[in-house]
């Protein structure tokens, strides 16, 4: 097990800065997910932790020891590749035993450890097959067993679930999480799937264009996105972002109002999560433009004076038809504000006064 510190880590490919001077600390036994769109540098970061890629700048420390120049084979890490990278000419048993073979572990001990690792991921009966005779989920388990068998101090997972079908992905997600907890393995997961990141990781690192946008728990990222990128990236359906002109440092959406610290701002971007908006007797007037039933919930697209807003209604019946006039309310606590240009989050002070606000606060509590 290891604690990991990376400082000012960079990787450039020609003129392209894949990873741009990032700093990150991962605690011993922690499960961290690196989340971001494709090409954001998340896999490159993972490969630099593994030693496959050599950084062009910065340092990687394992438990305080500088491993930046250390070869991959000496780092005692396990990496599960997106493609699993099982050796096609070896049986499952030979695949799992390979790292032990390299560590010169005696034959008798080797068989025991292979059996144990195979048992952990429940593939004991597949040991004599070859990779191409296995399903995607089974190959994934073999890849995990091959990594676990050498008892690494750091487990790295590169989009390990992206080649699995939906139900299997769900099952493997909780299985990997349970395994990680039980073994207390420091784990770094790279993914572009926010559900994967939020359900599995203790903390999430949001990356974009080679830089870290924010680090935090799923809850922190959801409630207090540090900037517009995180606000738009986390949450599904995506957050409504509308540009408003504050009046005397105050922003107002229907009856909900909040004050900005900086009263001089001419324009701010306000974030409204679709699940925080609801239909109300009074509020921001609008007209239903589109109704999208999603099964458990219904997503409405509503044209309002501040722009088109999406509202996620927890009632699964369609309550309003396209073309109908409605009013929308939001609790002022759920308002988020960002600098329109820079995208940085702006602190808001909620006005506790006014009966409308009080009423909407009560209603928001009753929402699931």
């Amino acid at each position: 097990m290891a604690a990991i510190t990376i400082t000012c880590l960079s990787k450039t490919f020609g003129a392209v800065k894949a990873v741009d001077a990032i700093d990150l600390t991962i605690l011993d036994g922690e499960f961290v997910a690196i989340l971001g769109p494709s090409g954001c540098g998340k896999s490159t970061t993972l490969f630099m932790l593994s030693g496959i890629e050599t950084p062009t700048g910065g340092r990687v420390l394992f438990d305080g020891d500088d491993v930046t120049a250390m070869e991959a084979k000496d780092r005692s890490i396990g990496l599960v590749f997106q493609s699993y990278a099982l050796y096609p000419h070896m049986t499952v048993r030979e695949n799992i035993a390979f790292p032990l073979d390299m560590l010169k572990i005696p034959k008798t001990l080797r068989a025991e450890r292979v059996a144990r690792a195979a048992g952990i991921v429940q593939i004991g009966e597949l040991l004599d097959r070859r990779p191409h005779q296995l399903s995607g989920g089974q190959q994934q388990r073999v890849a995990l067993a091959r990594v676990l068998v050498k008892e690494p101090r750091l487990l790295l997972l590169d989009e390990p679930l992206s080649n699995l079908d939906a139900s299997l992905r769900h099952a493997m997600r909780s299985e990997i999480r349970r395994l990680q907890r039980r073994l207390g393995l420091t784990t770094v997961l790279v993914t572009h799937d926010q559900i994967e990141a939020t359900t599995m990781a203790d903390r999430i690192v949001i990356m974009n264009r080679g830089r870290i946008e924010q680090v935090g728990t799923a809850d922190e990222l959801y409630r207090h996105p540090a900037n517009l990128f995180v606000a738009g990236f986390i949450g599904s359906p995506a957050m409504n972002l509308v540009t408003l002109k504050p009046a005397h440092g105050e922003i107002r959406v229907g009856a909900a109002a909040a004050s900005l610290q900086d009263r001089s701002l001419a324009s701010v971007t306000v974030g409204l999560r679709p699940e925080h908006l609801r239909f109300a007797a009074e509020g921001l007037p609008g007209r239903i433009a589109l109704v999208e039933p999603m099964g458990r919930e219904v997503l409405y697209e509503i044209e309002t004076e501040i722009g088109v807003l999406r509202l996620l209604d927890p009632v699964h019946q369609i309550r309003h038809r396209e073309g109908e006039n409605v009013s929308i309310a939001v609790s002022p606590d759920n308002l988020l504000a960002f600098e329109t240009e820079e995208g940085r989050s702006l602190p808001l002070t909620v006005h506790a006064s006014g009966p409308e606000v009080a009423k909407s606060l009560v209603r928001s509590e009753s929402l699931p």
Partner: protein
Amino acid sequence: MTALAQGDLAGLGSLAPRRQRFEAAPYLYLAPLILLLGIFTFWPLLHTAYLSVTSWNLNPGVPVRYVGIANYEDVIDSDLFSAALWNTVVTILVSIPLKVLLPIPFAVFIWSMGSRGEIYRTVLFLPTMISFVAVSVAWLWILSPLGGYLDLVLSSVGIKLPPLLTRAETALGTIIGISTWKIFGFHVLLFLAGLTRIPHRLIDAMRIDGASDGVILRRLIWPMLGPTTLFVLISTVIFTMQQVFTPIDMLTKGGPSNATTNLFYVTYQYTFMNFSVGQGAAATVLLFVFLMIVALVKFRLFDRFVHYR
């Protein structure tokens, strides 16, 4: 009934009962190929078998005489044929390390260089594209002990170039060397193609698992090149004899004292140099048997080693 059935089944063409009837079209499509194979492969095969039990000297005026297995006895007993068989075995045994195994490290090296390796690939491949007749003439000049290029180079450091092609001890080795030089780049190219089947992630995975370059070569690259190696091995065994026909004919004519002939060249020697068509045909049939044995071994090997996709 018929009218009704037709009406009902009009939309279900494939379900309608169909009479089995002779279809001429497939045979028509196959006809050109069957004709060509018949004329140029199967008829000569049968005719060779027939000629091998006759005596004839290629002269249309002389009648063909049936002699039974006498040609086979003559050929098997002759010094020429046993020299050819021996040279063939030696050539094959020496060719395996030179033409099958030696290209592998070259291919791996060029492969590991990525796009920078292209120049070496091109240079190595060049001899493959030159006509073997031109190659033979060039080597004849290079190896000439009287003012040849190699002689000039060696004499500048005080070494006298021996007459490599006219000495029995060195002639076969020289022919094998030239044929290796000619085919080497092509085999490197085949191995490079085989190497592209190995995903780079596998090498990364092995490296993380603690493997050194040597281990990666032995435990990953070598086994994954198995199908390519086997293919190169088989084609080397089968085609080396054919391949060296041109340099033998251009450089040594099978000599000196039968040192460079082989099972392939010997059929030419019997038929067109000795004008003994029957003996040439008998040697050809023996060559055919030899190649059938090689093919049989090949199928067995493929079953045994090429066991994964």
